[in-house]
């Protein structure tokens, strides 16, 4: 009984210590990000690494989601006699939820693991210490640039995912019945306004912050050689995916309240 209580205490204090350290890390990165010298070259490199190189994967995931949504929604809506709503169901599902969350999770897997493993490897081989010893702030050079690149790139990648999802949703529907792209778009976006489009897209900046912050944090606090690098990569993906999903729950509620 007492051992259960003490292990619960240990878990709780470990959990709180992790959040405390994450908060301190975020503070150090924020301070470094807004004070010169700014590391523009590294930022552009990361924008390419995180943005351009994630694009094919995100586009593919978005396209697959569009096809699946089209097939599933067609079956359900036909059963309830609402087949005419199919374009709108696809467009709204993609733009409101599946596009942003699929992009968040795909980037969390690809970029979270990449950043976590890269920084962890640099940490255990003393490369981060070498950066610091060279009088360069590693929070500014390594963390701020990667987090900022994630924040800036997530909405753009979401747009790409949305586009591919809607496009492939139409292709899937057009393959079973005659429907022009023009008709599909007109029907799908009927009654839609910017409140349907902007808040869900820009909520992914929060996903970007979560992915970048957690991956950099887990990477830069790594200890213990190759095993530590493996743990950092895994925990970066698991924790960032988990927090992206949790943040999505909160943000969906927030968007429904403030952008009805």
């Amino acid at each position: 009984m007492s051992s259960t209580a003490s292990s619960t205490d240990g878990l709780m204090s470990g959990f709180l210590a992790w959040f405390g350290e994450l908060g301190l890390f975020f503070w150090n990165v924020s301070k470094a990000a807004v004070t010169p010298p700014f590391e523009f070259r590294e930022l552009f490199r990361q924008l390419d690494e995180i943005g351009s190189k994630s694009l094919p994967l995100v586009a593919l995931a978005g396209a697959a989601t569009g096809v699946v949504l089209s097939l599933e929604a067609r079956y359900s809506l036909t059963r309830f006699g609402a087949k005419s709503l199919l374009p709108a169901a696809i467009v709204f599902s993609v733009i409101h939820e599946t596009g942003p969350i699929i992009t968040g999770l795909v980037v969390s897997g690809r970029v979270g693991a990449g950043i976590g493993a890269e920084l962890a490897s640099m940490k255990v081989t003393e490369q981060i210490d070498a950066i610091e010893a060279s009088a360069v702030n590693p929070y500014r050079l390594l963390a701020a640039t990667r987090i900022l690149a994630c924040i800036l790139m997530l909405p753009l990648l979401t747009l790409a995912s949305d586009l591919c999802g809607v496009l492939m949703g139409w292709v899937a529907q057009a393959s079973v019945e005659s429907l022009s792209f023009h008709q599909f778009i007109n029907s799908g976006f009927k009654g839609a306004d910017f409140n349907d489009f902007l808040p869900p897209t820009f909520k992914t900046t929060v996903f970007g912050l979560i992915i970048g912050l957690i991956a950099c944090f887990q990477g830069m606090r790594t200890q213990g050689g190759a095993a530590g690098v493996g743990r950092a990569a895994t925990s970066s993906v698991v924790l960032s995916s988990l927090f992206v999903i949790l943040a999505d729950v909160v943000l969906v509620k927030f968007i429904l309240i403030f952008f009805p």
Partner: protein
Amino acid sequence: MNTTNELSVRRLDAKGGDGKSAVAVKDLHKSFGSQKVLKGVTLTVGSGETLAVLGRSGTGKSVLLRIIIGLEKTDSGSVCIQGQEISFLSLDELGGVRKKMGFLFQSAALYDSLTVAENVAFPLQHHRREMSKSEQQDRVRTLLAEVGLEGHLEKMPADISGGMQKRVGLARALALDPDILLLDEPTAGLDPISSSEINDLVLKLQAEHHMASIVVTHDLHSAKTIADRLALLDKGEVVIEGSFEELEKSDIEFVRDFLKNS
């Protein structure tokens, strides 16, 4: 009440340093968990002087060096670099002090995604932004020529030997023309010929650049070759400090054992 800035410029007393010392550490204590690594270490290094810190593995030599460059925080005690107390500086303030220092890591710690030339250029790109790219490239070539690696500019760290990696690390440490050079086990893991080459190189660079140096090593031969003074550390404390001859004359059992077995 002392502010951070007041503390930052606090000068040490005569024993710990007088502002003329390149490096002065006083009564340093450092623990990792329950393990006490440093127990009141006091050392000074004058400008242009080379101090070798000797001792068995695990006696806190590398920790001492990491504290001097600010990679580890002390539990208590003070570290002064050219008269400036660094224990209370922020990361960016510490950066100003670190520009005056070069650090060679035991593992060389080269950036594995950059070429040899890019590794050496790294400090220049961040702190000599007024230099044009061609000036930076010239400086990199000069530094690599100094360490005998002028023909290896485009190689990756993984493609060169351990001794060559140490040389690249040394060239990188010298990039900003530092006043103080810190060397962590410069000859560890190297064959006798490479060790001898590194020793000669360090001596040559010291003569050319007139830096204060602290060399952490357990290689007595290397220490004798490179250093003006030696300090022997045991269980986190300085057992003896002086010239090699003074160490030889010591009747402290640990000193005699260390010299006999080295």
